[in-house]
């Protein structure tokens, strides 16, 4: 009888360090917003965001190819430890995505404030839109743009997600700053603890702009990398739809926080939608003296003057 070698160590799948966005990321988010809106104190706003996310999905599908930066420019960025997508050089197609979304959203069911904002944006010329985009991405913004900027952000999310989708995950590299997106350099909106074979229970930061996710260790501050003074806060006594699935991870070393959402508590949890459905958690953690370390671009100006 012929002997057969036994492989005692079958190669196991390595956990992916980067997860590029799925093509239906916005459709999933729309369903999540819709689900979270039921019996919610901000139900109307969340339903509106569900429509906005669906419009994002339609725009992403309608635009055939989002142009990537030249291969040479990406190589240069790579050699200098920079992310491949450059926020300073937006492809002009983002304005097409915006105009398509504005047309899809405009109807009588919207409150007056939102309609006025939509009309204003629909009549705005290219230079005004570029100015708004630059203002948003630079993060030094004026509070009286709180109406316009979420729409600008939504269109830029579509564009950068469309670009990120076309990248090869193997071309991404770890940046010196662990808290910014390795794809576009934006700060993270929240972390998500994923379910899955090789990535089970691993924590990924979720980009606030391009929806790329990158792996960072759990029980470690995503801002200062301290692992001694991490605490998790959640809302007590909520029987809400996402109870237990959303927590705020605070660090007493740098007094910052970012939300962390758990797929094992709710497989449909979405870092953007569940973040906006738990603003009470932000307010209480803010009162406890922690500063949020990343933005949710769909909500602008929620700070006290």
């Amino acid at each position, binding site marked *: 009888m012929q002997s057969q070698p036994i492989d005692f160590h079958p190669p196991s799948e390595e956990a992916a360090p980067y997860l590029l966005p799925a093509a239906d990321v916005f459709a999933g988010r729309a369903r999540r917003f819709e689900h979270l809106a039921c019996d919610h104190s901000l139900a109307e706003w969340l339903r509106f965001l569900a429509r906005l996310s669906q419009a994002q999905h339609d725009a992403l599908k309608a635009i055939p190819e989002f142009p990537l930066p030249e291969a040479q420019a990406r190589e240069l960025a790579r050699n200098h430890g920079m992310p491949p997508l450059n926020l300073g050089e937006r492809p002009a197609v983002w304005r097409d995505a915006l105009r398509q979304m504005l047309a899809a959203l405009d109807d009588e069911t919207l409150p007056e404030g939102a309609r006025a904002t939509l009309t204003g944006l629909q009549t705005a010329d290219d230079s005004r839109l570029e100015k708004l985009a630059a203002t948003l991405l630079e993060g030094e913004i004026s509070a009286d743009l709180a109406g316009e900027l979420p729409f600008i952000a939504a269109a830029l999310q579509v564009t950068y997600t469309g670009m990120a989708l076309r990248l090869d995950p193997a071309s991404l590299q770890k940046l010196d700053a662990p808290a910014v997106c390795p794809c576009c350099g934006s700060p993270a909106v929240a972390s998500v603890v994923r379910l899955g074979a090789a990535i089970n229970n*691993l924590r990924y930061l979720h980009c606030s702009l391009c929806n790329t996710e990158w792996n960072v260790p759990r029980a470690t501050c995503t801002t200062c990398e301290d692992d001694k003074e991490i605490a998790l806060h959640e809302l007590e006594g909520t029987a809400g739809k996402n109870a237990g699935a959303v927590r705020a991870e605070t660090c007493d070393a740098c007094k910052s926080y970012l939300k962390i959402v758990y797929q094992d508590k709710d497989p449909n949890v979405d870092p953007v939608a569940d973040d906006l459905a738990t*603003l009470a958690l932000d307010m209480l953690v803010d009162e406890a003296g922690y500063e949020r370390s990343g933005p949710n671009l769909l909500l602008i100006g929620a700070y006290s003057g």
Partner: protein
Amino acid sequence: MNMNRRQFFKVCSAGLTGSSIAVMGFSPTAALAEVRTFKLARATETRNICPYCSVSCGVLIYSTGDKSKNSQSEIIHIEGDPDNPVNRGTLCPKGAGLRDMIQSKDRLKWPEVREAGSSEWKRISWNEALDRIAKHMKADRDANFIAQNADGLTVNRWPTMGALVSSASSNEAGYLTVKTLRGLGVTALDTQARI
């Protein structure tokens, strides 16, 4: 009014009325009223190593209570550390029951002795325990130490004493253990971390 990058990230109750929500015509009133009905529940998250066997799996420990004097800390949950390359988030059944071991009412928390002829366990101090162990070791070593073997060769063996060292020991602790025990002539020396 301009906001800087930090404020751009911030979400607080005082600001909701000037935010996108209100500007777009959605009312934040109910959400603001609701905030006062919530309380924050806090838990710390810490890394550690399972104490049981030689594999030394990484664990994440969750506990309630801050470090203030009046609050009693309590471990509420332990799970495998998914970032640990050894166990990748998994735990064996023993490791998965770690919390019960820590909180077991039968867990030994101090030295105890059952004197010869007695059926009772008696609590003693650490100093007394160490003194007793040292006396036992000395008596045993004096009685059984082998300085030379049958051929007259110097061997300095203490064959009646053995030691099994914990797998949670660091390299430095292992070094000191070997130096001490080999110095006494112990030959039966092993560590749990040696698979």
